[in-house]
Each structure stands twice: as C-alpha cells, then as structure tokens.
C-alpha cells in the first residue's frame, strides 16, 4: 500500500493509471483494497495517494517562500516533488522535511536553472530559519563568567555559541530578498480582504526582484522567541565560525582579523563592540 500511496501524482493531481511494471494500477489496487458501492479499489487508494502528496507538498510550500518567489509555483512544485521522491520524509515531524533540499538543489541543478546558486542559498537560508526556531539554547555566558577567568588566561578562553545560532556565508543577499517576499505576501493577504481589485492585480503582477550576486554574511538568530537576521562583517563571521569550531579567543581573533589592514586600535574598538553586541543578543553561552 505504501508504494501505491507514495507514487507521484499525475499533472492533474490524480493517481497514475499505470503501475511501475506496466500493469493497470487498478489491478494492483484491487489486490490490496476492497471496492464498495460508491468507490473502486483504485479510487479508495487514490484518496490516500492524494492526501500524502498534498500534505508533504503543502508543508514544503509553506517553508520555502523565497524559493517559490524565484521559481514560480509550477517550477517549485516540480522541484519539491522530485526532491521528495529522492528524499522522502525520514522524520516523525514535517519540520525536518526541507533538511536536505539545499543539497538536492546543488546536486540536481536541472530543476532550478538558471538560478541554481540563488536557489541553493535560499534553501540554506530557509532551513536555517527552521533550525533557529526550536533548537536548544544554553545558559548565557556573562561578564561574571569572564571575570572568573584570570586576565592572563582570557586569551586561551574557549567561548561557545548558542546551538540555535546559524551562521551563513552566502553568494546572494537572500536575507533582504526574503524580507521583500514576506512583505509582498503580507500585502497580498491584506489585499484579499479589501475591495480594491486594481491594487491586488498590480501587486500580483509585481514580482519580487531577484537579488544580484553579492557575497553576504548573515547570522540567523532568535530573541524573545522571534527569528531575526543580522548582517555580519566578514571578519565578524570568521571570528564566530572559528569560535564555533572550538578555537580559543586568541585563535579566533587571529583567524578573523586581517593582518595590517587597520591599526590594532581600530580593530580593538570594533571587536569590542561586536562582542558586546553578541552578549546582549545572547549568542555566547557557557560551554557544556
């Protein structure tokens, strides 16, 4: 039965009439399910076949507004269906459904051409938002924790980052793009409740402009249960990723700060500001 209900639907969202070996699917269905006075065996299993695909496609559709905006609904559904055939859900929760979508886009680019690189960034970014939402947090690292460390040993300190914090190095500024997409969707929703058909049509026709390629570093984080994006300078991104990889404070700073581009005093003020900000945002936590 599982093979029957998990087979992709036809273009008009019906169960396929031919089975994998060329037999009529109705013959296969008749061996499994009883017909009744209103529905054939095929029609009864088709209810489950349609419910399965509608459920998983709806879930991805909700999770990927950026990808939808770039590809359009038709191409997005084709991508989602191909992805779910290759990587059906392996988790008890639909939350994890987009977990391998970025990998799929990179390794199977035909569904996203000519925007594969942008789609890859969007899939990573949209998955980061899922991860940030409900990944664990740990007790905050505080000034008192820092003062407990003798000054001579502070350089050797290993700071931990909150498990939920997601650090992304992207080829496109998809953070701004997602905000624009969300804003447009909100306007469309509001428009549906109003009596201004001309305005609604104008909004529907006005697609969100695809972003130009530009190296972008972003932290996706949460504060008071809300998800936020924060742009990072490349040096700040390098410091944070080094800390996450287990580097000491000294090593992370050495990795992050470019040599001899600015005076040490310029960097000192800047880095101090970053750390102050990261502590205020609760990004630094105690090591386990």
């Amino acid at each position: 039965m599982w093979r029957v209900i998990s087979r992709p639907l036809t273009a008009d969202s019906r169960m396929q009439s031919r089975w994998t070996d060329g037999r009529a699917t109705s013959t296969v269905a008749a061996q499994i399910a009883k017909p009744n006075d209103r529905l054939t065996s095929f029609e009864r299993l088709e209810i489950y076949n349609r419910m399965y695909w509608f459920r998983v496609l709806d879930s991805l559709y909700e999770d990927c507004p950026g990808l939808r905006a770039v590809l359009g609904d038709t191409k997005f559904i084709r991508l989602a269906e191909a992805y779910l055939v290759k990587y059906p859900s392996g988790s008890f929760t639909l939350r994890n459904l987009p977990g391998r979508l970025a990998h799929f886009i990179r390794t199977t680019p035909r569904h996203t051409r000519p925007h594969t690189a942008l789609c890859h960034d969007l899939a990573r970014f949209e998955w980061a938002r899922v991860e940030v939402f409900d990944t664990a947090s740990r007790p905050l690292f505080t000034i008192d924790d820092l003062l407990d460390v003798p000054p001579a040993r502070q350089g050797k300190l290993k700071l931990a980052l909150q498990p939920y914090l997601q650090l992304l190095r992207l080829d496109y500024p998809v953070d701004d793009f997602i905000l624009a997409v969300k804003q447009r969707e909100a306007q469309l929703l509001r428009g549906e409740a109003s009596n201004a058909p001309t305005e609604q049509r104008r909004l529907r026709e006005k697609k969100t402009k695809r972003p130009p390629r530009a190296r972008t570093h972003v932290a996706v984080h949460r504060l008071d249960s809300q998800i936020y994006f924060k742009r990072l300078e490349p040096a700040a991104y390098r410091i944070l990723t080094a800390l996450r990889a287990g580097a000491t404070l000294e090593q992370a700073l050495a990795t992050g700060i470019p040599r001899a581009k600015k005076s040490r005093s310029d960097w000192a003020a800047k880095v101090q500001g970053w750390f102050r900000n990261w502590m205020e945002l609760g990004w630094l936590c105690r090591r386990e």
Partner: protein
Amino acid sequence: MPANKFNGYTDYGIGIGLRIPHYEHILSRKPSVDWFEIISENFMVDGGRPLEVLDQILAQYQVVQHGVAMYFGAAAGPNKEHLRRLKTLTKRTKTPWLTDHLCWGSVDGTFSHDLLPMPYTFAAAKQTAANIRQVRDTLEIPIAVENVSSYTEFHVSEMTEWEFLSEVVELADCGILLDVNNIYVSAKNHGFSAYDYIDNVPHHRVAQMHIAGHTKFEKYILDTHDHPVLDPVWKLYAHATKLCGVTATLLEWDDKIPSFDEVHNEALKANEFIAQAREAKIPVPQKISRTKIR
C-alpha cells in the same frame, strides 16, 4: 468513565486542542478551560518558542498529550529515538495518560505523516498490542489508543474494525480514546452501523473521547476537523456517553481554525449531553469479558 486506570484516575471534563492561532489569546486572557490536548510531536523539540509557550500553558492548565506519529501498528515496533523524546516530554507535561492512533504510517524509516488504516488481522492485533505494551512500559503512564477514520478496507481483514480495536486493547490491557467523529466517518465510508461499533467496544476501557467536524463529498466523507461538530456526531457522542459514562472529552479543530471562543463554545456543547448522562445516573460500566471472535 470519569476516572479509571486508563486515564490515570482523573476526571478532566471538556478540553480543546492547543493550537498556534490561539496562543496569544490563551496566554494574555487566561480563559477558563478544563484542559488542553497538545500534539506531542509539536513539542518534541530541544528549545525555542514551542517549549516556552508550553511551559507557560503548563503553569496554568491541565495538559494531556496526544500523538500522531507513534504508529502503534508499525511492524517494526516503536522507534527508540521517538520514545526517548516522548518520555522527556511526558516528564515535562506530567500528562496523566497518553494517546495515539491505532494505525501505521511509516515504512523502513520513511514517514507518510498520515494515519493509515490497518488490516484487521489477528497477527496485526498481536503485534500492535505488543507495541503498545512496550510504549507503556517505557513511558510508565497509561496509554489509550484512538480509532482512526478511514477510506479503504483490506481483503486480508479477518474481523470488523471494532472487533480489531477490542482485540488490541484487551491484549495490550490499555485504554481507548473513542473518536466518535472517526466512527461516524468510517461508518459512512464503509457502510457499517456506527451504533454497532459503539455498542460493541469495551466501555470500561474508554479513557477519553474525541469529537470533531468533517466534510461530506459526493462519494465519501473526509475527516477534516475544519467544521463544528455535526448533529449525527453529537447523537453518537450522547449514545457513547450513556454507555461509557461521563468521559474526558476533547474537541479537535485543526483547519480553518476560528476564534478561541468559537472553538471553546463548540466544545462546551458537550455539557448538554453530559448533563443528560448525569441525570440518567448511568452505572459505571462493568468490566466485560472479551467475546471470542476467533
């Protein structure tokens, strides 16, 4: 049953499902509600808003866990990681009993995210009962299994759905979450009497009841949980209450969710039938010995 070993000897009254669109209303206005049912899987996470909201709810309300992905009917048995996460959550919620469905839904690690009907065979009943016992022994709380709505029947079935449900709960010595809307939907889809179903399950094992709305199509009924409860379902609920006694009751409303007040008021309509049942002074259902159906 107001209180029995299958619902942790509680008398919870009328509850509603805890749903995201109502979070703000519940947390800010703190309405009086007997209890909330949570979908376990929505809170089997490591942190973030789901657990923050849950902790605030737990501070003020009684909560019962209801699962959608244990798949008691799975041939491979319960998933160990799933059980570990579920146990962590039960310790947090202190749910007096836990419910999930009499169904299957995953094959070789692939999940359908659906509640798929089982073939009603003696072998399947034995395997399912063993799975339920394993879950109960791990979680150390009473378990009640819910009958699902279904749209197909299998050639290999050896008994009716209510006989299968009875066989499973007797073998597992567990409770029943009697979903009267699901009984109505399946009865219409398969052409059996919903009253025969309710008359023939072990009433003393009913730990909880579900009521919900459904959608009628030309050739079948779909269990959509997006409507108020329809009259025939209320009648079935009244009948079930007469047989089982006043039981913890939960209204499910999962799609096109209206305001909190509308959902709660719909649930509270159950009070009318509960009052009738109390007036009738229904005796506590006696433990009945299982009819041999083999």
